[in-house]
């Protein structure tokens, strides 16, 4: 049965963006109504045509104290839900997205791209994240650009877009904001928090900061800290954005033209890190793009070049460059051990949560040793942990793909947890 969420927080109608500040902003729905969905939990299938509808949002009117020392006076979290919350409110799974992901994780058209959600292979009736059994909450991070408060929103103090005056956000800040969303649904303890990559960092942060509110935690292809290599790649991306004259120190919303070239290059570089050499080679080899011979020039002769350019170009349609800066920064600052006296194990001491840590053999961005470090820390505090390294050559992106071993493992883990939690099989 669907239940009415407890009105723990004041939910007010969403703000309306008055002007169409830039092309990307134009992609966003004009009306951000939190009224329509925020108070009732309903299946997405019953809603209006996805492309026409605004993001579902929760507006939190109490301040969000940030790690940087700054605070947001009020803020908006965009989210989607799939399935139904049971009467005991014990079947909720929080889905945390990766760097450039968003709340559109499941089936249904993305309002900007028109495609299905990024985890549609996992989410649905009878699937691993079974919407007949679980209530899924997919949340957009604060700092993002898909309906949550971020740098392209208006700073209430000035009436102008925040740009670089937006405070720096951390993974812990994202999680702090998500707590209000979970509170909003009246959920004391999440059945599971799950996510890949940066989503996995949020999972670890949830487990460390709110151990009693997490029954099970599944960090996938992730790490408890950002490595020098991770930071290095992010810095390349940020510098590409900043080197674009259209970036204009983050103040580009009124100009009608953002740093699309810079953001595109950032995406191209990052995209390489999400794949693996064998996967790239299998897909493209040295194949030429729509030509028989190389052109002895700098056109996209090779298919892999054409592919990357396409990735970069399509990315700028759905992502804000400043958001990219802020969210990559949040990942860079993530170091769960440092928050706990240098000992990662201290982050999990006494945790009652059941963990399932998953890594992929060909993931060189968040390689297995990073996951293993988390597992060792959990072992050191005798936490309940499972750990699987899935053999695949698909690289970091494997967590977004249909990997049978990955799916079977996750299903088994969730089933086991559901039995412990007393959730009936669907």
């Amino acid at each position, binding site marked *: 049965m669907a239940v009415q969420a407890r009105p723990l927080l004041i939910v007010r109608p969403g703000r309306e963006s008055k002007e169409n500040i830039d092309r990307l902003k134009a992609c966003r729905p004009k009306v951000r109504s939190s009224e329509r969905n925020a108070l009732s939990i309903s299946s997405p299938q019953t809603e209006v045509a996805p492309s026409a509808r605004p993001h579902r949002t929760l507006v939190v009117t109490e301040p969000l104290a940030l790690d940087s020392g700054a605070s947001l006076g009020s803020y908006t979290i965009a989210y989607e839900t799939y399935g139904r919350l049971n009467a005991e409110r014990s079947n909720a799974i929080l889905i945390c997205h990766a760097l450039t992901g968003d709340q559109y994780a499941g089936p249904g058209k993305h309002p900007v791209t028109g495609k299905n959600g990024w985890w549609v292979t996992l989410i649905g009736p009878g699937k691993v994240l079974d919407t007949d059994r679980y209530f899924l909450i997919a949340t957009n991070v604060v700092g993002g650009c898909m309906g949550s408060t971020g740098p392209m929103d208006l700073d209430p103090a000035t009436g102008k877009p925040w740009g670089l005056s937006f405070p720096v956000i951390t993974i812990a800040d994202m999680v702090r904001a998500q707590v209000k969303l979970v509170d909003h649904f009246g959920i004391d303890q999440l059945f599971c928090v799950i996510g890949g990559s940066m989503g996995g960092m949020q999972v670890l942060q949830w487990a460390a900061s709110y151990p009693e509110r997490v029954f099970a935690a599944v960090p996938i292809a992730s790490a408890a800290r950002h490595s020098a290599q991770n930071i290095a790649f992010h810095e390349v991306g940020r510098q590409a954005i900043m080197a674009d004259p259209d970036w204009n120190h983050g103040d580009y919303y009124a100009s009608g033209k953002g740093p699309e070239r810079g953001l595109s290059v950032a995406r191209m570089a990052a995209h390489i890190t999400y794949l693996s050499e064998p996967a790239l080679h299998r897909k493209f080899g040295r194949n030429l793009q729509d030509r028989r011979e190389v052109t002895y020039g700098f056109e996209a002769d090779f298919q892999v070049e054409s592919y990357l350019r396409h990735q970069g170009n399509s990315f700028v349609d759905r992502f804000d460059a400043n958001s990219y800066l802020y969210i990559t920064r949040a990942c860079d600052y993530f170091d769960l051990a440092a928050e706990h006296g240098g000992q990662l194990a201290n982050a999990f001491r006494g945790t009652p949560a059941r963990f399932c*840590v998953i890594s992929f053999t060909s993931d060189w961005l968040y390689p297995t040793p990073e996951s293993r470090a988390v*597992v*060792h820390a959990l072992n*050191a505090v005798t936490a309940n942990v*499972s750990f699987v*390294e899935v053999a695949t050559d698909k690289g970091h992106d494997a967590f977004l793909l249909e990997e049978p071993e990955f799916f079977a493992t996750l299903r*088994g*883990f969730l*089933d086991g947890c559901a039995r412990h939690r007393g959730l009936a099989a669907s």
Partner: protein
Amino acid sequence: MSPDGGGNFALKQLRGDLQLVGAMIDGGSRVLDIGCGEGELLAYLAQWKGVDGRGMELSQSGVNACVRRGLSVIQGDADHDLRDYPSDSFDYVVLSQTLQATYRPRVVLEDMVRIGRHAIVSFPNFAHWRMRLGLLTGGRMPITPFLGANWYDTPNIHFCTVLDFVALCDEMGATIERSLTLDSEGRPFRLNPRAGLANLLAEQALFLLRR
């Protein structure tokens, strides 16, 4: 009732030595099974003895099978992944038929008696008469129904005999609480493990140790 994982594993469905291991473990205890395979012992202990079990397994297929059945198992090996566990974090640490495949069996055993209040170890006895006879008559590395691999493709790199094991326990200062020797049919018999006859007749041995 199935508090921790699936499978209707009655005791008799377990491999012979695992039945004996299972019988040594008190209900409701905390157990770490190193080299847990596909989780047969853990599933049995969880279902029938209310044990809070954890596993460690080297093979990905084994780990995945365990996690699929709802057991808490990590991919790891005894040589590298025991040092993180704090002392006395388990009631029993089990290592069945794996000691001879570790790089540093002594370190593994020391870790086991540190992590667990008890350690349960089973291993093949290289001094079994069939081994001795094979080497004596054939002059080649013995291959038996129980240990069927060739010398060049066996995972077993540190074979020992019952007497060797007892000597190592003495050297480590570990106390042997119980010992069982198993004949070729897997039937347990009771002989003093320090005596030569047990060393000759036992195809496998099973020890319950503590620090």
